[in-house]
């Protein structure tokens, strides 16, 4: 047996995961057509253990395997050569454990040693470099972009990140808390906290109430709805369509202020906790959410109609920053950006969530450009609003349940995995415990980890002035990547 098959949110014994020889594992991964979910090392006494999780999206299963790497082994044959989906994972593994994937085409640093790195260079007539960052013109997170241009046309964009690195994975092992999980990526508070709480509940076999599960999903959809509306405004701000920018911004305020009324924080901080949720949604609040969302839906529909009718907007949107479906698949783009490029990946439905299975999974006709990235946000906003209403209806049936149960101790020698579809896409948290029931490794994979390279591909061949439009369309996380 080469793989151990599990479902999403499942705890298993750490020793149940098969251990292969490194060469055998390498050959298997290079030939596999399943996409990698996570690929990470873990200190194993003096040695290093490499864990790999693969996703079988059609069956809704997760395949686990591992390999024990002796402390004397300092290199292995790179998998990326045969299967480019592993390029970021291998770079990260090399940086964290100093075991070199030999023959990796581009072993550049992920989060450390940025100062020594030499960027790609291009020579010739009218060629030049444009360096942007780490501090940007807007109020956003730090990252460095290096454009290689000829005239105004971008030939290549190199992205250097790592400025936000705060050592979140180590902190999570030493002192895990809901507050830390929320602060890893402040625009996906609910998604991160939900993934963390689910992991801890699996590891300790804590069974939370259906009511708490429903409230978590309502909050998750509200977060998705709020951020998508805000992003639509930000995209329009970058092409100087200011009416759209402001209308979407104030519409977003309505959603996050409702979140404030539920949880005391505009982004839902403090709502979810290990063992359930801290705040209830009663009938009165439920009616209020529905009435706010009805108003929001009306405004979003009206505004989006006006946007699509505007010739100046459409001329900037159409055919800008195209990423083909084949490229997206090769790079393993996930979530929102994957869907905008025609990859039907949505972990809410792929990894069968009990509450989403009755919901209709509406298809999206991708055009792969900036227009596609705007339209998918509009579509998902409207979908989310309808999901929230259905979830609130369901909540009625469970109104007498407790919202919180006592958290238990973690079970020793366990491995648990949790996938949450945040607004950017699949967020994967994995945790392992030792023989005393303490956390030994906490691995986080944000969807941005897959998708940053997609942005590089999108701006290739476009004018440099279209970069803000592409960047905002992707709207990837710096801190979720840097950890």
């Amino acid at each position: 047996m080469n793989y151990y098959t599990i479902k999403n949110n499942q705890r298993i014994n750490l020793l149940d995961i098969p251990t292969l020889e490194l060469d055998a594992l390498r050959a298997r991964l290079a030939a596999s057509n399943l996409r990698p979910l996570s690929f990470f090392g873990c200190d194993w006494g003096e040695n290093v253990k490499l864990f790999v999780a693969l996703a079988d999206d059609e069956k809704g299963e997760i395949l686990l395997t591992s390999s024990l790497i002796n402390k004397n082994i300092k290199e292995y044959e790179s998998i990326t050569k045969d299967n480019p989906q592993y390029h970021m994972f291998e770079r990260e593994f090399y940086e964290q454990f100093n075991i070199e994937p030999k023959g990796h085409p581009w072993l550049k640093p992920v989060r450390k040693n940025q100062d020594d790195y030499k960027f790609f260079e291009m020579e010739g007539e009218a060629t030049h470099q444009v360096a942007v960052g780490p501090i940007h013109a807007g109020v956003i997170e730090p990252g460095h972009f290096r454009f290689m241009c000829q005239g105004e046309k971008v030939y290549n964009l190199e992205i250097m990140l790592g400025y936000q690195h705060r050592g979140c994975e180590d902190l999570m092992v030493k002192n895990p808390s809901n507050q830390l999980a929320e602060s890893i990526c402040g625009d996906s508070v609910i998604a991160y906290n939900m993934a963390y709480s689910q992991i801890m509940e699996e590891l300790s076999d804590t069974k939370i109430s259906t009511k708490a599960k429903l409230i978590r999903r309502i909050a998750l959809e509200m977060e998705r709805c709020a951020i998508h509306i805000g992003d639509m405004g930000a995209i329009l701000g970058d092409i100087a369509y200011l009416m759209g920018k402001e209308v979407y911004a104030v519409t977003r305020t309505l959603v996050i202020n409702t979140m404030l009324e539920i949880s005391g924080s505009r982004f839902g901080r403090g709502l979810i906790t290990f063992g359930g949720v801290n705040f209830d949604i009663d009938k009165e609040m439920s009616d209020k959410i529905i009435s706010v969302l009805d108003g929001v839906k009306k405004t979003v529909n009206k505004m989006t109609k006006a946007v699509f009718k505007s010739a100046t907007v459409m001329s900037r949107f159409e055919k800008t920053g195209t990423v083909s479906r084949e490229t997206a698949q090769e790079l393993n783009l996930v979530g929102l950006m994957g869907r905008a490029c025609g990859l039907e990946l949505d972990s809410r439905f792929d990894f069968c969530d009990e509450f989403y299975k009755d919901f209709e999974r509406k298809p999206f006709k991708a055009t792969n450009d900036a227009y596609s990235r705007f339209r998918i946000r509009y579509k998902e906003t409207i979908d989310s609003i309808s999901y929230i209403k259905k979830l609130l209806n369901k909540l009625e049936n469970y109104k007498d349940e407790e919202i919180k149960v006592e958290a238990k101790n973690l079970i020793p020698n366990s491995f648990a995995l949790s996938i949450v579809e945040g607004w950017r896409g699949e967020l994967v948290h994995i945790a392992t415990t030792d023989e005393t029931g303490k956390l030994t490794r906490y691995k986080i994979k944000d969807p941005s980890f897959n998708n940053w390279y997609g942005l590089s591909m999108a701006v290739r061949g476009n004018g440099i002035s279209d970069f803000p439009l592409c960047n905002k369309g992707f709207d990837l996380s710096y801190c979720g990547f840097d950890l």
Partner: protein
Amino acid sequence: MFDTLKMKLWQKNQFIPDIQNAPMRTAFRGLPKLDNSKCNNCGECAKICPTGALNVNPLSIDLGKCTLCGKCKRFCENHAIDFTNYYKLGADKREKLIITEEMTPEEYNKKAIEIRKEIYSIFNRSIKFRQVSAGGCNGCEMELNAAGNANFDMGRFGIDFVASARHADGIVVTGPISKNMAYALEDCYKSCPDPKVVVLCGACAISGGIFQNSQELNREFIDKYKIDLYIPGCPTHPLTFINAVLDFIRKK
């Protein structure tokens, strides 16, 4: 074009008219309200506080560390700790952020930010900032962006974020200052023309917040340069930010 104009009529006016007395929803967790008479000094709340902001005997909460998560309030069976919805949390000295029982909203408002004549005479009620995210989680950044939107519209008070430190009167720092950002932050500070102010925004920037024990931080900047304004919160609410800056640049 007519559709775009119609949206303006549909939206009407969205701004908050009186930003210094804007109502806040009751659920918001703002200035703590402590009650020593109900506290039995068990000290359990101090142990569960994720950032170590809480101290007992007598009770005090350090807003520079507090993430306003409300865990202590839910935990305390004697209800000795509560949070009001008072949002004007900015202060000009680090030690003023330590809240004790005596600190009511009125008292805090009076003491927190003192008038500095030179600030008024130099900036004359308008101040432009350069924001540096030094390891921030995008929470404070999103809220600072929101402070400029049509609801809060801080531009009408002469407060703005500008694109370059060269154009700025001061810098606003968010995030716990990661090692990888320490150099860029200092560079940005030096690029800003004198006289300049430094504002720390959010619990992470003020004390390291939830990341204070991380090995990947470099907080020398905070010790090296004078900090003019501390604005707590996790993340800082737009009203907290705007009111703190308005109090800071006021004449009387």
